[in-house]
């Protein structure tokens, strides 16, 4: 093979190795360093540039919300088990199964309303602009996925929910 070509290919391989090495080392170092000091609310502080005072208020709201959230999650989990049991016993959706499914849906809706109320309360503890951004982001994440699923289903089946 041509000597110049060998030199160039070697230089290219060396350059790729140098770049990849420095990229991976710095990425890992960055992730390790930044993750070490992170807690559950780190994202709020970093993303919405909250001061210590704002952060303390948000933390207080968060800690107040967590027991309510855990209680609702336990109720939903228990109801899901009931639904599974009822559905496992028969081949049809019985009246009892229908009732359990309705109750599960109600519990989820109740939990979701409570969650959104928490987001509203937290957004009010932030500076107005950041609060609006936080609320929009949380609505998009928590409600947007349902819209996406419903949209994809209506696209596939050729009908739309809620339109007569």
């Amino acid at each position, binding site marked *: 093979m041509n000597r110049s*070509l060998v030199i160039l290919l070697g230089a290219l391989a060396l350059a790729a190795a140098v*770049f990849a090495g420095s990229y991976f080392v710095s990425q*890992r170092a960055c992730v390790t360093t*930044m993750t070490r000091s992170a807690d559950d609310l780190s994202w709020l502080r970093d993303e919405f540039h909250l001061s210590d005072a704002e952060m303390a208020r948000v933390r207080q709201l968060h800690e107040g919300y967590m027991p309510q959230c855990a209680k609702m999650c336990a109720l939903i989990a228990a109801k899901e088990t009931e639904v599974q049991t009822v559905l496992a016993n028969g081949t049809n959706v019985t009246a009892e199964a229908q009732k359990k499914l309705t109750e599960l849906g109600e519990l989820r809706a109740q939990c979701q309303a409570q969650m959104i109320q928490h987001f509203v309360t937290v957004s009010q503890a932030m500076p107005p602009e950041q609060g609006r951004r936080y609320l929009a982001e949380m609505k998009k994440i928590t409600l947007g996925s349902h819209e996406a699923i419903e949209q994809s289903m209506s696209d596939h089946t050729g009908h739309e929910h809620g339109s007569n």
Partner: protein
Amino acid sequence: MKENMNPDPGSTRGSAEASDTRFREVLRAARPSPSLPPRFQENVWRRIEEAEAPAKSGSWLDALAALVLRPRFAYATVAALVLAGVLLGTYQGAQTVKQTEQARYLAVVAPNSLR
């Protein structure tokens, strides 16, 4: 002094030159020069032109290889690559941490069953 002893220096020089010419003729006759290959002159000129012509196809690889082997160029390239790698790695690392922190917050406040 030998020169002073010679009565006619001019005639001595003349006979020496004649002897040289004869010697060259004898030498040439003893070692005949081989006949030139066909289109010898044309080939010589072609090679001279090729040597004087600016570098063309194929030689750009050589030029690039020579550039790569220059220490100053090599050090500068390595420094630029390390800098680019560190900057991109740090940026990507920060993005990864941000996504991880967001997922961590969401996992706490918004369970998957509600999303």
